[in-house]
């Protein structure tokens, strides 16, 4: 076991160095790369969609050259050499093209653009880009030296046309798109938003403050309403100096906005721009947009709206192609000893109780392996302790008494209200067996309550422990200090609001994360802090234990999700790729994957073994605050500030449902134990129950939808909604199904 873990850690070590969080752009690969001398984005292994051919696109070439130039200026000859060799550039590439990065980019484009598969566009790009470069070469200003990282990032904006013409260009395109056939209009309209943003930024970057203002006022009203938040950020930004250090902008620049457009629509757009010689817009499309062209019918407006809304456009299709082992791990086989108290009687199988069942040797057991399940040893998991086995037995016993839920058999809901919390309750968690409840508060305390008659007791002090008889049968009972028994305990240690909280599956530990940038592990035996995990330098928004214990995941403002093991003070994995804060994190039931939701309005699924991002889901229109896997591991539900719940098929990487009804941020989602019911709790003081079985059954996945990911969602939220339960001015911030399918909800009463 230990050896395997060591290996895992070692494998990660290299990664750690590379993605070390940096002060201002923590976690943003591309921004890091410019400075940390690691391979450029195209070939960076942990970059989203890292399977791009290295140095394929002209922009990559250009970035590479910029990096090379920078390295060379700083006399880092060795690095220059290594980088060039790795990128496969000829010896003289830099000398030839030095001095004019944009020109170099376009020159490189001519040779390599074919690799992109957009052969049709290559000709055009060669013509237009080089002509524009030639035309504007004299006006180009070399950016000042004092801010290399921003310059690398923003340098592309230095090319400019006549600022007064931007509005004309934009409205020209607008007129064109409004005049095309209906079926293409919706698709081409997607271009508006990224174009608008980039044109605005170009104006601002080149100090055309007034033109930028006019441009913004004229066209910001045309953008889709779900971009409002970003537009607000944009509107406050009116000077070049503001662009420095504004993360949102760096992201917009460094990551290409991804659009999916059908081939026909794309040809239409291209032809138009070609005819009009509209180089300005074409440049932007070439440099800042990634157009994912597909063959087939153009999509409808509703289809596009369902998928768009994220900070960087939709996910590329190939980003969701990797295989995901979403099946469940085989449960270790533990024979259920018959309960001698209540069901003594006949079929006793001959054995007296507590006969230890045979060890759970891997594989080879009667139940056949789920083809979609990862192999049992893919991720080294901790071995079951005796107490875990007892708990499993308890679990199975409870499971037999479980109520089968369905549309005609709704769960009862027990609501735990936190009184006198003074608006300070920030996080809640229940143990799996529903015996303990923990709350994190804004005053940095953590409180644990016992909701069963069994009180919370501490272990005796070391001196007292020496006195007890260690051989006695009830030693576990004797080590507890009866004097400390109470219904609740307070844990002090954090120095900022506690935003995330999670019990370990064995109920021995509690994990909390806080604004102070630490994650703390608490013992529920001694009620003291055991470890403070430092790594996130910024607030940590969420953390969760793996369903098998030992590992945990955290994510926060620094945009990097980290995977930890309780006995390592450094993270085992760092998952970087999100463009904004990671707002929620969850483990897949098989512990092989983690999912993170972010303020960039995307959801990413990460492979714990490789550290790769294997799924990117776009479609939410606000930061994602709630995530839940279905118990069978096949589906994911996510809830955001926009009040919508979206359902995802993990295997196919598709959105399969949208549940509308909540009017405010959804803070918690939970599937019932058998997965028939999805419960959602929201800031709008309601708990809603949805028919999950129906939502997943109604799914029609023909080959086309599976291949293209263009699903047509039916608007059936009303049919799927099974119940709405108002609480009395108590936002619902946590939901939990007990083992018998009773729904527990928690929130703070705000009179």
């Amino acid at each position, binding site marked *: 076991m230990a050896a395997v873990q060591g290996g895992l850690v070692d494998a990660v070590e290299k990664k750690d160095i590379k993605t070390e969080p940096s002060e201002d752009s923590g976690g943003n690969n591309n921004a890091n790369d410019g400075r940390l001398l690691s391979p450029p984005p195209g070939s960076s292994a942990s970059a989203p969609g890292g399977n791009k051919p290295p140095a394929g696109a002209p922009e990559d070439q250009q970035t590479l050259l910029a990096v090379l130039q920078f390295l060379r200026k700083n006399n880092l000859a060795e690095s220059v050499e290594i980088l060039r060799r790795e990128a496969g550039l000829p010896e003289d590439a830099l000398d030839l093209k030095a001095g004019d990065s944009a020109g170099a980019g376009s020159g490189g484009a001519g040779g390599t653009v074919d690799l992109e598969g957009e052969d049709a566009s290559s000709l055009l790009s060669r013509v237009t880009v080089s002509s524009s470069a030639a035309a504007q070469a004299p006006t180009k200003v070399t950016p000042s030296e004092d801010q290399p990282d921003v310059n690398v990032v923003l340098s592309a904006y230095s090319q400019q046309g006549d600022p007064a013409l931007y509005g004309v260009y934009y409205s020209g395109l607008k007129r064109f798109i409004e005049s095309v056939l209906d079926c293409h209009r919706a698709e081409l309209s997607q271009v508006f938003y990224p174009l608008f943003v980039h044109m605005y930024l170009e104006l601002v970057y080149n100090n055309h403050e007034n033109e930028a203002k006019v441009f913004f006022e004229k066209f910001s009203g045309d953008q889709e309403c779900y971009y409002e938040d970003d537009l607000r950020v944009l509107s406050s930004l009116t000077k070049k100096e503001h662009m420095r250090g504004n993360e949102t902008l760096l992201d917009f620049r460094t990551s290409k906005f991804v659009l999916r457009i059908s081939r026909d629509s794309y040809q239409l757009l291209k032809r138009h721009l070609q005819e009009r010689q509209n180089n300005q817009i074409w440049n932007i499309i070439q440099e800042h947009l990634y157009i994912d062209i597909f063959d087939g019918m153009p999509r409808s407006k509703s289809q596009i709206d369902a998928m768009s809304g994220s900070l960087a456009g939709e996910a590329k299709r190939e980003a969701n192609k990797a295989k995901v082992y979403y099946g469940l791990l085989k449960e270790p086989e533990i024979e259920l000893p018959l309960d001698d108290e209540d069901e003594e009687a006949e079929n006793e199988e001959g054995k007296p109780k507590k006969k230890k069942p045979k060890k759970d040797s891997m594989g080879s057991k009667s139940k056949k392996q789920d083809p979609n399940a990862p192999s049992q040893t893919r991720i080294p998991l901790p071995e079951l302790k005796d107490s875990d086995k007892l708990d499993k037995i308890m679990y199975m016993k409870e499971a037999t008494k479980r109520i089968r839920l369905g549309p005609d058999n709704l769960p009862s809901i027990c609501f735990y209200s936190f009184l006198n919390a003074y608006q300070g309750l920030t996080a809640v968690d229940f143990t799996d067996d529903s015996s303990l409840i923990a709350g994190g508060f804004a005053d940095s305390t953590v409180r644990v309550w016992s909701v069963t008659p069994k009180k919370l007791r501490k272990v005796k002090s070391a001196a007292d422990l020496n006195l007890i008889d260690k051989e006695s049968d009830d030693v576990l009972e004797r080590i507890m200090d009866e004097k400390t028994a109470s219904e609740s305990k307070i844990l002090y240690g954090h120095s900022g609001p506690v935003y995330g909280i999670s019990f370990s599956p064995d109920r021995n530990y509690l994990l909390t994360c806080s604004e102070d940038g630490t994650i703390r592990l608490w013992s529920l035996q001694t009620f003291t802090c055991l470890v403070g995990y430092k790594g996130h330098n910024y607030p940590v*928004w969420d953390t969760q234990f793996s369903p098998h214990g030992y590992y945990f995941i955290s994510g926060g403002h620094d945009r990097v999700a980290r995977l930890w093991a309780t006995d390592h003070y450094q993270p085992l994995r760092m998952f970087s790729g999100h463009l904004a804060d990671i707002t929620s994190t969850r483990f897949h039931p098989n512990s092989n994957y983690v999912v993170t939701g972010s303020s960039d309005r995307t959801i990413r699924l990460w492979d714990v073994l490789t550290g790769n991002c294997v799924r990117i889901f776009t479609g939410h229109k606000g930061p994602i605050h709630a995530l839940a896997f279905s118990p069978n591991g096949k589906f994911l539900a996510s809830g955001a500030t926009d009040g919508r719940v979206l359902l995802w098929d993990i295997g196919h990487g598709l959105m399969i449902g949208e549940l509308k009804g909540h009017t405010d941020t959804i803070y918690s989602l939970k599937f019932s134990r058998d997965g028939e019911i999805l419960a959602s709790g929201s800031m709008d003081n309601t708990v809603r129950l949805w028919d999950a079985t129906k939502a997943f059954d109604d799914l029609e996945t023909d080959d086309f939808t599976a291949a293209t990911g263009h699903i047509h969602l039916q608007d059936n939220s009303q049919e799927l909604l099974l119940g709405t339960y108002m609480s009395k001015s108590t936002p619902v911030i946590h939901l939990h199904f007990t083992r018998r399918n009773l729904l527990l909800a928690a929130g703070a009463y705000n009179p």
Partner: protein
Amino acid sequence: MAEERRPKQCTVVLPTESMKAMAESIGVGQLQEESCVALSEEVSYRIKEIAQDALKFMHHGKRRKLTTNDIDNALKLKNVEPLYGFQSQEFIPFRFASGGGRELHFYEEKEVDLSDIINTPLPRVPLDVSLKAHWLSIEGVQPSIPENPPPAPKEQQKVESTEPLKVVKPGQEEDGTVQGKGQGATAADGKGKEKGLIRLKPRSTHELSVEQQLYYKEITEACVGSCEAKRAEALQSIATDPGLYQMLPRFSTFISEGVRVNVVQNNLALLIYLMRMVKALMDNPTLYLEKYLHELIPAVVTCIVSKQLCLRPDVDNHWALRDFAARLMAQSCKTFSTTTNNIQSRITKTFTKSWLDEKTQWTTRYGCIAGLAELGADVIKTLILPRLTVEGARIKAVMEGPVVSNIDKIGADHVQSLLLPSPPATKYIVMATSAGPASTQQVP
């Protein structure tokens, strides 16, 4: 292309005067106008940035209100020292001052005398966080307990009563009257309907659960029973419990029938009890009474103007009941009168008509005047004052006239005391006598 136009993005910039004021406060005297402009733009941008970051903390704090702590945390995020001394749970009471052509908003910091603090007793320790569990739903049905909000909020009750015909989409039942799937039948036949829009009258649930029936029985018995303590409790329950919506039709019938029977039987005590029930119902903030006014108002009016309310009119104090009912009437006029139902004007007309009638008994006369008097100063001015002289003469006639029944005398006496003693009324009398003819002309 967005369908709806958004409100203009805010491009507010701090005024340059603020920059000047701030510069002066740290000892920089002459600040160039240009630097002020540059500064204010920069500062505005930074403030917006901080506000946007602070929002994140609000969201993660699961709050709807931005607090000073969120701002502090946002500043910390930017490696800026947070602002100390602005800790406040609710809001910071900024004060406004102007002078010398300057306008300022400032945070008042009072000088505190330490000895005051030492000498005042310690404030009570705030209550500690505690955990309380209740049932939000039992097998899909939300129980009507004080911990839960009223099953049908007032707006919804209103919608139901004012729009009896509404379009019901299949599958929407849960959103309407019935929450959850408890009433299996309702949901089932709703689902059974063919798809499409069906116009149907929303079902008002007529059957009460066993608990509700028990409750109804207990409450009504206690309300009209002999034990005063029980009655107080029952009335309290009617006035505060959120889940009475479904029983409202029964309560209303109970009251109107009760008044009808007891007026005939001249049972004063019971009439008083019933009026107290009306009051309790009106006090309950979760009930939408409009639907039942047609039953309640006649009952109340009866208790105001009925000729006889008790067995021995000369001894019993039925005047108090009339006063009480008149107040109830005025209250319902105030809360329920709208331009469509015209309650106030209709009631006023009724009162005036019977008052003006020569043959009206003194008891009814008293009720009418009491009812009108409660309706407010305007009514008193336009309707009662002009009649004062006439009424005075009539009272005089009864009091000093030769043939007088005892009952009439008492009645006249009460009317007189009603008109006379209240200070505003005496004022009006003075006005009426001085400007008598002019105001009589205002009588409709």
